[in-house]
């Protein structure tokens, strides 16, 4: 049965900062049992001056900034190409790194606890780990995108299983990105390079694929995804600069373009920069654009309120959808009714 849902833009969390209260290219987020939102900032390029922007920021839904941890580098607790963040049942924080081919573990305050992982293609080795998710048994699943497979570990990094191979066929992958697990034990994978989502059993048996939407609605280069209790699929449609919501049967329920207005942190900025704020208030920030090429990308570059590089979507179990709006350095929050 397809449920009727509405998705209403609620507010924006975020503001571009190199360090401190704000984000830089947030590619993923996770929410712990206390409602603390951990935002993973990829940042870049990897020049000395930009490295401190690679960090995890902590905040709340109503934009209280709680601090940050981590920095750019190769040492313990440091990040190079941080890609995904997940939280276990003990509120420990796990960060995958596509540059260092490892997973780093922190306590909930951001204190470094451990790291594991090494580059390679053997069981348990990693090549661009793109997305993390915990199952109900506290096992950590990840998309091993460079090896075009899914791997499962204990939360201490002991290898349990791996499945998947490169290719366009059913059950195969091309640079898989997002991963979501359901309470019923299904595994959903964003098969990035093949422009589809695939649903598997926990032991890697393909159940179905979702990709056959009509022209215009089709998903292109899907990134992070989430699945709700009704089996609806929320996917960051990275290649189309949108967030799509699919019903359990794969039908399109909604296509969100983003509609951000200024966050509280942004309002604070304009309060102390009133001239810039005044001119902004007089500007047309949602113009109609007709770029000659790369249409959706270029429109997102020119319309600040739209998603640009949406990389991850998360649900909080309380009817809210969070979108990591990576190139706009913010989270857009939607209320689901």
């Amino acid at each position: 049965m397809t449920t009727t849902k509405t998705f209403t833009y609620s507010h924006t969390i975020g503001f571009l900062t190199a360090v401190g209260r704000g984000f830089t290219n947030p590619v993923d987020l996770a929410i712990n049992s206390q409602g603390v939102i951990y935002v993973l900032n990829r940042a870049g390029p990897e020049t000395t001056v930009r490295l401190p922007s690679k960090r995890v920021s902590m905040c709340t839904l109503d934009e209280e900034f709680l601090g940050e941890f981590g920095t750019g580098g190769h040492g313990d607790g440091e990040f190079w190409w941080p890609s995904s963040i997940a939280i276990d049942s003990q509120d420990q924080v796990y960060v995958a790194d596509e540059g260092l081919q490892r997973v780093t573990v922190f306590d909930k305050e951001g204190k470094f606890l451990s790291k594991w992982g090494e580059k390679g293609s053997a069981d348990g080795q990693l090549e661009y780990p793109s997305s993390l998710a915990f199952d109900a048994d506290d096992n950590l699943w990840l998309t091993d995108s460079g090896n075009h497979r899914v791997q499962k570990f204990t939360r201490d990094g002991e290898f349990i299983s791996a499945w998947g191979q490169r290719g366009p066929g059913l059950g195969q992958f091309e640079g898989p990105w997002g991963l979501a697990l359901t309470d019923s034990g299904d595994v959903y994978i964003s098969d990035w390079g093949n422009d589809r989502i695939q649903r598997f059993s926990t032991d890697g048996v393909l159940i179905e694929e979702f990709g056959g939407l009509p022209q215009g609605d089709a998903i292109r280069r899907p990134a992070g995804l989430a699945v709700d209790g009704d089996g609806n699929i929320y996917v960051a449609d990275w290649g189309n600069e949108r967030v799509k919501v699919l019903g359990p049967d794969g039908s399109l329920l909604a296509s969100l373009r983003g509609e951000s207005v200024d966050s509280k942190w942004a309002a604070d900025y304009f309060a102390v920069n009133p001239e810039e704020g005044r001119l902004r208030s007089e500007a047309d920030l949602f113009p109609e654009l007709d770029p000659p090429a790369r249409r959706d990308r270029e429109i997102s570059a020119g319309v600040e309120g739209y998603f640009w590089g949406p990389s991850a979507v998360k649900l909080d179990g309380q009817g809210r959808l969070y979108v990591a709006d990576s190139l706009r350095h913010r989270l857009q929050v939607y209320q689901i009714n």
Partner: protein
Amino acid sequence: MADKNLGLMAHLLRRASFGATLQELEDYQAKGYEATVEELLHPEDAPEWDDDVFRRYQPDLNSVMYFESAQNYWMYKMINSKRPLEEKIALFWHGLFATAYGKLNHAKGVVNQTDTFRRHGLGSFHNILMELSRDPAMIFWLDNKDNHKDAPNENYGRELLELFSMGIGNYTEDDVKNCARAFTGWTIANDEYMSVRASRDSIWPSGRIDWQFEYRPEDHDDTEKSFLGHTGNFNGEDIIDIIATRPATSWFIAGKLYNYFVSDTPNEEAIGFLAEEYRKSNGDIRSMLRALFLSDYFKSEDVWYAKVKSPAELVVGTARLAGSYTTPQWDITNLASDANFMGQEILNPPTVEGWHTGTEWVDTGTLVERVNSSALVIGDALHPGVQAMIQRLKDRQDSYQPGELVDECLLLVGALHVSDGTHERLVEFAANWGEVSFTPEDAVSCSEQQVVELLQVILATREYQMA
């Protein structure tokens, strides 16, 4: 030494592309010279560079908010594009219509301008000037957003005539003033807000916002103007109509193309030939380049190696030869830095006049940088292009005497012709090792290292540093 036909193909590819590997040269040879020229002149027939994987793993390339990211993005594109002449012509127009990040504080604005050069750079010069006049980065760069009906700003109007189309001496001060008046009202959307953001280098709250062209009729001076002997209520389009048909424009563009594609030393006869082609084709750049590449002016061995490679040409050409940076690499930023240290900050030319080219690329400091950068890239035997060169040597024969090894390596780096003196020095260098052999197995590693060292020395030669 490579044969003359292969040498000519290599010459074409050094100018219309960023050089070519031996395999690429052989593939082009099989098609023939004229067919290769035609293929290069029609980049739209080749697939566009798929940048998705780069933007995924290096998201800063996606928004190019930072200057370094914008430079890195173009480096990747020049290295990986299957449309090399599209990149070369973008680099040409970028050098001629020099627009610098340093004033704009908007890297993507300059990147968007280079995209315009890709889309239109081989088309008619008239259209290129139209696109340039509507380009937001140019409007910002030369202050046309401050060019108002009641308070004209002559900056763009002056440079359009002096640096972008005809050259000094071909117009009067009154022409400049009236040209500027014709472009009043050509501005960008939200100009006040965008101006204050640029002046404060504001990236807040959510990064840069792309600039958009906007024409404001209420701010356009629609009164009568006289321009280059014509009189009317001219708008910018009318001005470009007049400029594009001037003989001075044909000579100006012909001279710039000759300098960029043929030689650092002007040749009046060849430039006249090109100017005539401009007139015959109504200023079609593709037609001019076709005529040029098929002409004896271009094919003559007198102009082989008659240009110093620009830093961008050098680092991109070497990366393409080595097969490096074909996948996302965080250290791509080193490549742009190398070009910067050699004197060419792409996307940030020093002035509106662009870079001083030719022998001015080389001084004692930049020469060392050019040699070191090339040697570093080609010196990594893990790069696929280097491995391919070594494999070709192995496949051909098991061992090489010094002279044979030098000749084969010169061929492998793109059918490089060197002077007798250079050849002699290279053979002396290779003779230090005597025979280089790929058998038995335990000799391979040492021999491969010797090949790499010889390649490094070849890339340091005068001939490789020239185009």
